[in-house]
């Protein structure tokens, strides 16, 4: 006689009653294991809850063994994994109860509370226990395979989401507290005005310190960096992409492709080292020195040179952005059907016309995505910015000293560590972070809207 795989379907009253026993056991096990996950998270945060860990582990072990016997009786399957898991939970409980409250020695140079171990163990047994108990709670149907995995997937998803939202909440909360409107209307300035007066026929100099706290120049500087980086990297990146796709053969294209991908993965710090060496090459007073370093006039009318100019910094950032744009251009060109391109050529259109009126418009959404990623890098994700920027108090034109919000956050932290008594900015790093967050989110949104509209217009989708 054929064995019934899904006992749920049996309409026998006695059996259904017994099956309910398995369901009840599985439900209780699900509840406890889910509780163990929550408790594990709590124990990792609060050491005092550690006392619950050992009993909970023993309870889980007991529930798993019960589940094993119910499964064996009802479904005629010996699910030995449950026993193994139960034994492991039991062993872990014993291990945790044997551990001293604080772990020291054993080359651990520090003090770790026992709850660290017990919390992680509870999470592990909780997650695996939920999987099994939920599986049998859903009467071991094929669909239960899928559903029983949901809690594990959802747990990790929620962990990631909570981490991100905590960061955003932290920045917004502190940013709102530290918010000063004056920061947005003032450009940062920290200079000394030297006043020359004549007394008894002799010149006397007195110093009048000028200090203005503000982030206006840093905001404009960030936008300037984004703009210059786009202007430099867009034509070059698109040209490289078009060249690889249209003109280079398989071999040359492969070589260029490989090298751009390799260049893409170069860390910004490696470029920054080169950039700093390059900055030292031109002699003071030469044209190249002015272009590389950037210059401006201070309140006394003296020329002041900076660390590096916007033009120089964005040229170096472009080196990292060009491969991204080239790659996305190529992807865009690849996605156009061969038929459509041949259709254009078959009308007698030149390759050039086809490229500019058909292929590039089609690839525009891809190119915009590449540019968006590039701009996000220019805005603050790059190490290169920290090493090439200054406070930029002498103006924001392409030939002034580079400055950006990302650098300012770093700089404010630096002042704090020095205990700078002058700076009003020292308590406003979260405002800066908030502004940077708004700018990044804003640019991403604009780019996405643009991408969608372009897709609709040029691809009809």
């Amino acid at each position, binding site marked *: 006689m054929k064995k019934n795989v899904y006992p749920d379907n049996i309409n026998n009253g006695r059996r259904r009653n017994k099956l309910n026993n398995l369901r009840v056991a599985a439900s209780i096990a699900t509840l406890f294991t889910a509780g163990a996950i929550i408790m594990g998270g709590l124990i990792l945060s609060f050491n005092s809850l550690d006392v619950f860990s050992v009993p909970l582990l023993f309870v889980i072990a007991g529930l798993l063994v019960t589940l094993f016997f119910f499964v064996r009786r009802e479904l005629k399957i010996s699910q030995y994994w449950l026993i193994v898991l139960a034994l492991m939970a039991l062993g872990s409980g014993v291990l945790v109860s044997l551990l001293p409250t604080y772990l020291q020695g054993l080359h651990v140079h520090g003090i770790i509370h026992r709850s660290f171990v017990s919390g992680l163990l509870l999470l592990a047994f909780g997650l695996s226990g939920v999987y099994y108990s939920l599986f049998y709670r859903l009467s071991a149907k094929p669909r239960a395979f899928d559903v029983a995995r949901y809690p594990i997937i959802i747990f990790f998803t929620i962990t990631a989401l909570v981490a991100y939202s905590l960061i955003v909440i932290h920045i917004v909360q502190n940013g709102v507290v530290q918010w000063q409107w004056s920061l947005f209307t003032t450009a940062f300035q920290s200079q000394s005005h030297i006043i020359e007066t004549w007394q008894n026929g002799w010149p006397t100099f007195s110093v009048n310190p000028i200090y203005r706290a503000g982030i206006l120049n840093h905001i404009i500087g960030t936008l300037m960096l984004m703009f210059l980086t786009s202007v430099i990297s867009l034509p070059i990146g698109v040209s490289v992409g078009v060249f690889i796709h249209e003109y280079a053969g398989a071999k040359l294209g492969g070589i260029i492709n490989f090298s751009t991908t390799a260049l893409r993965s170069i860390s910004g710090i490696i470029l920054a080292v080169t950039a700093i060496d390059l900055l030292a090459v031109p002699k003071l007073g030469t044209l190249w020195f002015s272009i590389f370093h950037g210059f401006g006039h201070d309140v006394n009318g003296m020329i002041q040179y900076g660390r590096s100019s916007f033009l120089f910094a964005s040229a170096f950032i472009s080196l990292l952005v060009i491969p991204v744009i080239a790659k996305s251009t190529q992807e865009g060109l690849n996605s156009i*059907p061969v*038929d*459509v391109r*041949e*259709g*254009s*050529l*078959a*009308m*007698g*259109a*030149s390759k050039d*016309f*086809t490229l500019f*009126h*058909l292929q590039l*418009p*089609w690839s525009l959404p891809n190119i915009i995505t590449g540019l968006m990623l590039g701009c996000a890098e220019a805005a603050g994700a790059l190490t290169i910015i920290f090493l090439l920027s200054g406070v930029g108090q002498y103006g924001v034109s392409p030939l002034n000293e580079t400055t950006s919000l990302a650098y300012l956050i770093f700089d404010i932290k630096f002042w704090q560590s020095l205990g700078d008594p002058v700076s009003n900015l020292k308590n406003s790093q979260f405002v800066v972070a908030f502004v940077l967050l708004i700018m990044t989110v804003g640019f991403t949104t604009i780019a996405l809207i643009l991408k969608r509209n372009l897709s609709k217009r*040029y*691809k*009809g*989708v």
Partner: protein
Amino acid sequence: MITDTKKINDQIALSSTGRAVPGGIMTRSLEIYYRNNKVIKGLDIIFPPGKITAIIGPSGCGKTTLLRSLNRLSELTNGCNVKGQIMLDGEDILNMDPMLLRRRVGMVFQKPNPFPKTIRENILYGPKALKLKVDHDMVVRTCLEKAALWNELKHRLHENAFKLSIGQQQRLCIARTLAISPEVILLDEPASALDPVSTASLETSILAMKGEYTQIIVTHNMNEARKVSDYVAFLYMGNLVEYGETDKVFNHPERPETRDYINGKFY
């Protein structure tokens, strides 16, 4: 192997005296290679001007390759090599500028391939690409009328071409080709992706253009070939097996292969 050359030559003479229709194509010992593989093996054929010629034959016999070589689109395929002569109104197309040639020899593809633009822009793409000085509204209207699309689409000119049905897209591709006023139109299995209703309207469009353009149509559909074409060429393994007037080829084929293929008994 050309069986009916004399009659066709008479036809050419007739058309050149009666109505001056340009666009006669003649090949002389045409050979096409894909790398070392000979796809077309010495072909001599005449496509008379102003007429519809159907090329039939089993898959892989070189129909599409032949068609693509007539406007030198085969050059875009890597490793494709054309030898021999293809004459368009007495000029060897292999010595012509490919862009000027493609302006005279338009092509409609197997799968509808409208440009990702509006219907109007699709029609005007050719004139813009070739910098033709034409009245845009006029061109759009006449081309759509010739392709029997004007009544359906006159209120939808600014919609994206992808929103049209697949049959309308294919007829739009024909209308688009007409905008550069070619002499020859190559149709590469234009109805293979269409349902019977769309196929019927496509055939109407093709028949409406008869006499004004030389049309060469590759097809797997015997009914279509019988319905629209004036002449039929049967190609097998890169060779021209039979060529003649449609009625004659379909009703009284000379070669047994042709008869078998037409009756669907082929190998």
